[in-house]
């Protein structure tokens, strides 16, 4: 009997050294896969680096927007209460806002208080979004300001006094301000006369409700509220864009339409190996708007041309000898050309696709001292007008088609794009934009029934001139 180990050893030895010769095409297919993988990695690297750039740009933008700004000054009349010696250490001195004048204004009586009345310009008090909540005890971010027309104080429903509101600024930048009532005054008539739209309540004071109110017009025009409400400023613009592009194509074999014939495989291989950058362009009319000078929405409608060159392949079966290419002798602008001559099979022909193009972009504008940057994402939709194209219709013959819109060609291609660039106002109403963009089509130039899928991707430089209507 033979023991188990010897059998196992025999099986291992025989199988370990078993060799099977692969098919002849296996190497070519391996090389094609290798090129496809390399191309995929290059694309990934391109998109990754673009993503990193966008992230850095977005991070910079967020930092720029969220960076602490210079605190807005309190413009109301103030009374410094700290001793002079302590002022340097306590840079944020106590400031008293006299509010009694409001009472006199609203009640129509004169006040003995000699302090200046709180006018819209004088009662600018830093507030934050936190202040809009009645429960919020402490205003946090002091870098934005809103004016109020009145400051009222109610210590209790029974209280009928209004007095001086003291704003204490602390050295702690987080705890920005809080207010106290230092002097009471009659309140109820004011409460009765003030509008009900109180919009923030920032202060931390025991048993006391301090409310800065804005609102509907008061009887006295001099008491009109002046809340610095940041109304959206929308500026509409129109213009022109010219966009030269360096474009490359990603090829994919169609497993359904390509049954694996030698010529179809060779065609795909040739396309994959000769995927060079081509120069294309687009020109568009632009219309859009900027919102608050921070956001920009642009739409465009125009003309785009995509071209690519390819080298003709030699027929594997036909014996007829027909030249190919528009410049070849005896060539007609249409017809079927079977490539059987080695000399002419090396012909390089150009295919041209003409599209009506429309796009929509949403951009963020980032203003710096020197220049305004622009970051954005967009979507381009191209509608095929016509193409001059050599198509591989017959098993191993090309068909030249002029002004063609046949079933092999996709009517629409959709191209997402990302862009980064600079914006410069050369006149008050005239703006010049220069942006680098990267794009990658999600749709093939050919329909799914064609031998191959061919998607465009690349980079472009977009120059735009915009005229603002107001």
């Amino acid at each position, binding site marked *: *009997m033979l023991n188990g180990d010897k059998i196992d050893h025999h099986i291992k030895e025989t199988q370990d050294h078993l060799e099977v010769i692969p098919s002849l095409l296996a190497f070519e297919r391996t090389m094609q896969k290798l090129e496809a993988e*390399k191309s995929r990695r290059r694309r990934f690297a391109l998109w990754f680096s673009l993503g990193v750039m966008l992230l850095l740009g977005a991070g910079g933008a967020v930092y720029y927007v969220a960076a602490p700004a210079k605190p807005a000054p309190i413009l109301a009349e103030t009374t410094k209460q700290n001793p002079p010696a302590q002022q340097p250490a306590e840079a944020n001195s106590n400031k008293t806002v006299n509010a009694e004048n409001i009472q006199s204004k609203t009640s129509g009586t004169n006040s003995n208080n000699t302090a200046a009345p709180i006018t819209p310009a004088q009662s600018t008090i830093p507030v934050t979004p936190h202040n809009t909540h009645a429960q919020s005890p402490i205003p946090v971010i002091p870098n934005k300001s809103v004016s109020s027309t009145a400051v009222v104080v109610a210590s209790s429903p029974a209280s009928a006094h209004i007095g001086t509101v003291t704003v204490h600024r602390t050295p702690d930048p987080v705890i920005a301000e809080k207010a106290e009532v230092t002097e009471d005054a009659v309140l109820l008539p004011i409460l009765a006369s003030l509008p009900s739209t109180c919009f923030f309540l920032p202060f931390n004071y025991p048993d006391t409700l301090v409310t800065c109110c804005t609102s509907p017009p008061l009887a006295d025009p001099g008491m009109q509220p002046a809340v610095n409400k940041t109304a959206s400023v929308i500026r509409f613009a129109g213009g022109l864009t010219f966009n030269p592009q360096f474009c490359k194509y990603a090829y994919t074999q169609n497993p359904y339409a390509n049954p694996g014939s030698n010529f179809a495989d060779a065609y795909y291989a040739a396309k994959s190996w000769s995927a060079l950058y081509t120069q294309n362009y687009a020109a568009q009319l632009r219309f859009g708007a900027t919102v608050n000078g921070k956001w920009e929405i642009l739409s465009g409608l125009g003309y785009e041309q995509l071209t690519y060159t390819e080298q003709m392949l030699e027929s594997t079966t036909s014996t007829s000898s027909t030249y190919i290419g528009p410049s070849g002798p005896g060539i007609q602008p249409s017809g079927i050309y079977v490539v059987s001559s080695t000399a002419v099979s090396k012909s390089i022909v150009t295919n041209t696709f003409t599209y009506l193009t429309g796009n929509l972009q949403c951009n963020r504008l980032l203003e710096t001292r020197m220049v305004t940057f622009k970051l954005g994402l967009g979507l381009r939709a191209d509608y095929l007008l016509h193409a001059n194209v050599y198509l591989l219709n017959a098993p191993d013959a090309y068909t030249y088609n002029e002004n063609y819109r046949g079933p092999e060609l996709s009517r629409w291609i959709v191209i997402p794009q990302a862009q980064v660039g600079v914006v410069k106002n050369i006149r008050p109403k005239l703006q010049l934009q220069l942006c680098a963009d990267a794009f990658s089509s999600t749709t093939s130039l050919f329909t799914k029934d064609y031998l191959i899928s061919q998607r465009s991707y690349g980079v472009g430089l977009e120059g735009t001139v915009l005229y603002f209507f107001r």
Partner: protein
Amino acid sequence: MSRPEPEDLNALLHQCQKQQKAAQTELYNWLAPKLLGLCLRYLPDHDNAEDVMQDAFVKIFLQLHKFRGEGSFEGWAKRIAVNTALTALKAQKKIYFERDLTIVENVDFTEEDPLQLSAEEIGACIQTLPSGYRTILNLFLIENFSHAEIAQQLGIGESTSRSQYARARQVLMKMLKEKLHTQPDQTPNFIIH
């Protein structure tokens, strides 16, 4: 093609790293039959196996810089091929583990019996095993994976790997014995191209 000498192999790998097609062709011609034989043990369908072999070569060409020369290049390449084959099997959901683990009767071989079976005949028997048996038998018996490694690779328990291997081995022995005694003159159906 015979195995290149170590110096030649180093030069060949260096040239392959520089994407020289002639060197890639030479490396392919040397390794492809070995890797296809390996892939066929995991994937009986020839086209599928050849596809996996091509994917393995793509990985080999792209990751050549990671080979430090500390072990055999052939072993490194085979390991890549095994991993690629396992990935393909998992992606195609073609690994089925048999639940029937009934112990079959022991098969006795004489001293001469196994030697009468060619590599192709044994390979053909392995190919006809159920996918779970085949995969575990290949990994444990031929690739020298431990049951812990197999369990980790296939996402199964170590005990499952052991029981599946025991059963796979018994079934294989029975098939080999039958082939040896009942159909000695049958042409092996192991596909060779």
